[in-house]
């Protein structure tokens, strides 16, 4: 009841990906801000916020990417808490909060991104859009019905509003939960309630000054096996 040997898609993948970008460009015009095709890998496009739904429709109808994979958001601000390994007795560490976007760039802290694929052509497109201060973007439900739950998730986790979504209720969190957990400035309490056991260091000999990092040659991990050593041994 099926076929076993459809040709592996990646053979024609790059041509398809270039074509998809071209098709999208002709459909959206200058609403397509940037695109990136990594040969043999994947394709990224960024569209203007107001063209988000138009891009979805174009992807579905013009490019022929019928399969909805996922939709989510990115908070590009680095976390002010790091990995939660700070010493609570010390003053909080200074961390850069410089926002630097990934592939296809961007101007805002939040970006909404999604991926759609084709079940027949076997390639997918990652699509991103910037979000303004109102964090508002059109809902994708008219293009891909499956976006419903993904938009609800993005709404509660990042606080992004989807215009035209019928039912932006919380999905995971209790109703009335304050804050948006997946934002980088939302503290992860599991890493705050107790100090990192790795902060403690070996107590020095009485009368000896505290060892500087890299001082205790025999035991410092980074020195033993950082650079270039094979992990296979």
């Amino acid at each position, binding site marked *: *009841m*099926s*076929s*076993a040997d*459809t040709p*592996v*898609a*990646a053979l024609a993948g790059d041509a398809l990906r270039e074509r998809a970008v071209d098709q999208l460009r002709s459909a959206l015009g200058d609403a397509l801000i940037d695109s990136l095709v990594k040969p043999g*890998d*994947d394709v*990224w496009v960024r569209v203007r916020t107001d063209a988000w739904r138009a891009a979805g429709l174009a992807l579905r109808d013009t490019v022929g990417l*019928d*399969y*909805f*994979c*996922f939709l*989510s958001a*990115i*908070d590009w601000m*680095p*976390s002010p808490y790091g*990995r*939660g390994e700070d010493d609570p007795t010390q003053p909080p560490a200074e961390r850069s909060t410089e926002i*630097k976007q*990934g*592939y296809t760039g961007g101007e805002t802290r939040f970006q909404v*991104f999604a*991926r759609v694929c084709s*079940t027949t052509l*076997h390639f*997918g497109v*990652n699509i991103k859009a910037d979000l303004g201060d109102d964090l508002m973007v059109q809902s994708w439900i008219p293009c*891909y*019905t*499956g976006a*419903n*739950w*993904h938009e609800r998730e993005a709404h509660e*986790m990042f606080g992004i509003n989807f215009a035209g979504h019928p039912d932006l209720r*919380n*999905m*995971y*969190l209790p109703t009335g939960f304050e804050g948006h*957990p*997946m934002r*980088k400035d*939302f503290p*992860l309490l*599991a*890493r705050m309630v107790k100090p990192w056991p790795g902060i403690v260091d070996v107590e020095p000999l009485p009368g000896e000054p505290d060892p500087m990092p890299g001082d205790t040659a025999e035991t410092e991990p*980074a020195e033993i*096996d*950082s*650079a*270039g*050593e*094979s*992990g*296979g041994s």
Partner: protein
Amino acid sequence: MSVETMLGDRQKLAYIAAQAADARLNVELETEGMTLNIGPQHPATHGTLRIICRLDGEQVIWAEPSAGYMHRGYEKLTEVRTFPQVTTLVNRIDWLGSFANEVPFILAAEKLMGVEAPPRAQHIRTILFELSRIANVSLFLGDLGVQMGAITPVFMAFRDREYVLNLIEGATGGRFHPNFDRIGGLFNDLPKGWIDETRATMKKLRNFCDEMDALLFGNEIFQTRTRGIGVIPSEIAVQYGLSGPNLRASGVDYDLRRDQRLPLAWDKVDFKVWTHPDGDSFARCWIRLQETRESTLIVDQLLDTIPAGPIMAKVPRIIKVPEGEAWVSTENPLGEMGYYVISKGDLGPFRVKIRSASFNNISIVPWLLRGVYVPDVITILASLYFILGDIDR
């Protein structure tokens, strides 16, 4: 085969019937309904999923799943972990096929780093991947019986799944959570005698599939319970992003094992991607049965051709993944499981979007459950086959 054309018609009919039921419910005189909470603690939800149903008699007028009783915030947790630490987390997303969860993440990290695991590691990865599929789906087959009221299949499933878990434990050390994948390869090589043991177990598993075929799938009661129930037409399935057996049961011939090129060994074996034109509960269950059998054959083929060599590529001991973004998805037991990894050149990932199969698979439930009867709610949920960890992550 004449069956196929007939099934196609039946699929259309069932689709029309579902819409008709929908219309009728809207026009018919409103009787006082009842709201039934299926879950969060309910034997049919294997986990803590809650489904709120409005009932008219035993017919469901409206149903809405309510997830989140088990949300563990893995996407947030990955941001405070280093790359090697993440694999222990993602093991626990779909806890029945845990090894399969590691693979796409590791592949994404490897893609960003530009390393590729040696052929032997790729091979063993694929074998373990298929074993975890068998472990996962064999439990599904047993669980299916329980949901339908047959108590024996589940014990048989546990019996034979045990052999597979023993194999996974024998090779990786972890029964449920192997954490065996490393960036650049595998933690260790296979222990001696493992290959022969695996071959014997695959025979047992094929026998188990035959038993299930006789006990459940050939059973007329089972067929009346599942055929024509919960029909998902292919367009709808694709729109909702259903994946895995649920998608293939709707007649969409889409299998990431075959349809994309990954540094894994699937392109070295010959296997059949099963599809079914019906899109009903029976089709979904039947596809899984066939895939279990197919997986045992894949494992057999792979065992014959394990290349010799190292299992670890050259990677630094302290792993820093270069800046970039990568998406890798694989055909997991439950469907397409993918990780969108964004790295900023740090020890840990900047953001990981986990695309889990069950989340999409279950999002179709409100659409699918309208107009069905309460017992069918259970069969449809069972046939969609979700793992709560995979929905809630």
